[in-house]
């Protein structure tokens, strides 16, 4: 494949990866920002979202769009409720202690993963996309006859992949509006800045924590519902998103939402482009190396605030 079309294909693939990654990492970052909890079970909430998407879409039947829309509503809400339950019954009991929450969420990770294995089984199952048309993309070049439009072999995207990119962008905008323009957002930001003072002013910090933990997990589940028509639901699929989300959050700055968006774009696009031109393994190596460099030279992340 020529360089130009090749790069365009790589960028499109990268954009899809970024779109999913930004939702997953956003959940992780939000939870850390507000609650100061490092949620190791985040990837399993992602997996749970994908598995529930399969359950909902096969239960509803009919046109794929019905199942997909059903999954889009049910899976994130259900996963959010499960996560809120985890907050109430696990995290609250260990007083949100930094070390103990890590151990507790590792436990939650295994409980969710093994329960899924027992109930859902080890198979990878597909969910049908609501629509999926292959769109060939043109490429422009100066040939013998001057400026010409060509249709290179393999340069294409599907309508569903485009939808994923736009859907993720829409969710991001909604999340930003929620955090900056609503009362709920104000309460969350107050809790993030100083939970003791917020409590003194009558903010129900306990409830806010449950909501935030649920919202974070719900975002991961939403990302998974979007990705499951491209990939397939499998009980071990939570590992990669967790690793990538951590990389993104560390590079972007823990708790910094704009930093998370920038880092997700950076990692997603570089993953797409490097894996297309070189190898996917190299892309992972570079991302991990980048984390090490950020930790050495800018421990607070790109947009994170240094602790005083």
């Amino acid at each position, binding site marked *: *494949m020529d360089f130009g079309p*090749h790069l365009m*294909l*790589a960028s499109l*693939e990268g954009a899809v990866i970024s779109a999913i990654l930004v939702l997953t990492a956003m959940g992780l970052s939000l939870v850390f920002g507000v609650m100061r909890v490092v949620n190791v079970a985040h990837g399993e909430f992602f997996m749970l979202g994908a598995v529930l998407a399969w359950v909902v879409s096969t239960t509803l039947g009919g046109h794929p769009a019905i199942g997909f829309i059903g999954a889009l509503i049910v899976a994130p809400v259900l996963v959010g409720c499960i996560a809120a339950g985890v907050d109430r019954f696990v995290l609250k009991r260990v007083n949100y202690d930094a070390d103990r929450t890590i151990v507790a969420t590792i436990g939650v990770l295994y409980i969710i993963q093994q329960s899924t*294995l027992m109930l859902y*089984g*080890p*198979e*990878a199952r*597909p969910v*049908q996309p609501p629509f*999926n048309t*292959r769109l*060939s993309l043109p490429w422009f070049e100066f040939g013998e006859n001057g400026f010409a439009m060509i249709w290179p*072999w*393999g340069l*294409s995207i*599907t309508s569903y992949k485009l939808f994923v990119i736009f859907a993720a962008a829409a969710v991001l905008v909604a999340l930003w509006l929620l955090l900056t323009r609503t009362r709920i957002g104000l309460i969350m930001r107050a809790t993030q800045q100083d939970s003791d003072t917020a409590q003194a002013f009558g903010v129900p910090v306990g409830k806010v924590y449950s909501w935030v933990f649920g919202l974070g997990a719900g975002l991961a589940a939403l990302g998974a519902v979007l990705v499951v028509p*491209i*990939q*397939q639901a*499998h009980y*071990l*699929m939570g590992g*990669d998103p967790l690793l990538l989300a951590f990389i993104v959050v560390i590079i972007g700055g823990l708790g910094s939402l704009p930093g998370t968006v920038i880092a997700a774009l950076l990692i997603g696009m570089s993953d*797409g482009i490097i*894996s*297309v031109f070189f190898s*996917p*393994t190299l892309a992972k190596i570079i991302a991990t190396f980048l984390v090490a460099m950020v930790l050495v030279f800018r421990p607070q992340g790109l947009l994170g605030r240094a602790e005083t």
Partner: protein
Amino acid sequence: MTQPTKKPTKMNRRKALIGLGASTGALAAGGAFPGAERFAHAQSAAPIKIGFQKHATGIGAAYGRWYGATTDAAVKRINENGGINGRPVEIVVEDDATDPGRGAEVLEKFATQHEVDVAFGTLFSHVVIGSAPRAGELKLPYFVVSEGHHVASGMLNRYTLQPCITDVKSQVISMAPFVAENLGKKVTMIYPDFAFGHDHRDFFSEAIEAQGGEVVAKIAIPPTETTFTRYFPNIPRETEVIYHVMVGPAVLTFVKELGEFFGPNRPELFGFIDSLEAVDIQSPGLEFLEGSYFWEGMPRHAQAGDTEAQKAYRAAVGCNERGASVEDPANVSTYAHMFGCWETLNVIKAGMEAADYQGPADRPKLIEAVEAMSAIPASEDHPQGDKLFNGKTHQVFAQQHISKVTDGTLVVEHSTSIEDGMYEDEVDYTTQTF
């Protein structure tokens, strides 16, 4: 000791159990249980224990499920026909998580904890390669159903045998002429990046060059990969044929993305059915496979010329005409591979009977008996077809099939002969000591 000793006045639980056990034994010996008399003539009526190393979880789970179903069906049939040497067969299942390290641990468990007579049933080549050395150390006969060339290449040991499924080297040698003559000579290979895929890469490259063709690109994909579009731009434009073989939970995604990448103008496709095992060929998004070719060890879809033995086998393993579960047509089997479990169990039976196998002390005799096998004719024990076993390399050779997708059904287009897939011996395991 001041405590007075208790006198047992009533029958306690242990005694009750002993009594119950004794009476059960007496009833069984007397033939009071239906079916029990079939095994009564054996010197020992204890069951023959076969350890089944199952890919119940991990990337091989779909195969594991169907290897399990086939094994159960085969054991049921063997037991209904009187077991082995008059003894019933019992399968001991352990999950190896499709992981080489875990595989070796499972064999250890079989030998020391379950005390099985033989181990059997592994498919994934990296698990076989990880487990076989332990089988040799434990002196546990290890019958694999794996396709890998590792058995015949001589890298394993005398305790590891592959008596019922042809290895990749033989498969590709027999099929390269068909690819070169009918599909094209410039081939791009896409294969998983571990031993099994490397067998394909090395032996097909050699075989197609022998036919005057060439491999223009080799694309290795990690077996745990979940998205594939990013690998496809490396397919050179001059490619005439794409040779694909993928395994793992993401095979459906792989084939779908391959279709999306090419759109309407695809090169010829020649795939190993591995890329679609346990996947319905009529899944949405796979329409582009119409007119493409697949290797099959045993045809998934019922063919016009199926023998009675093949029909009986299809019914016994619970598959319908399309190779899916009779109970749940959405549950598609790994039909092209799983016959290997059925046939291997029958080879174990034949070997044990020839060796008059009594217990673990007779394991070397069992291996010698299997090594002595040569022509294995098609029968209900061997529904896939005639086979030729090479006792020196511990590898079997059989007919292979190339099927064309025609109206969403795999129709056999060409069948190779056993001789098409023969190659020179690379090892003589019979010279190794036990």
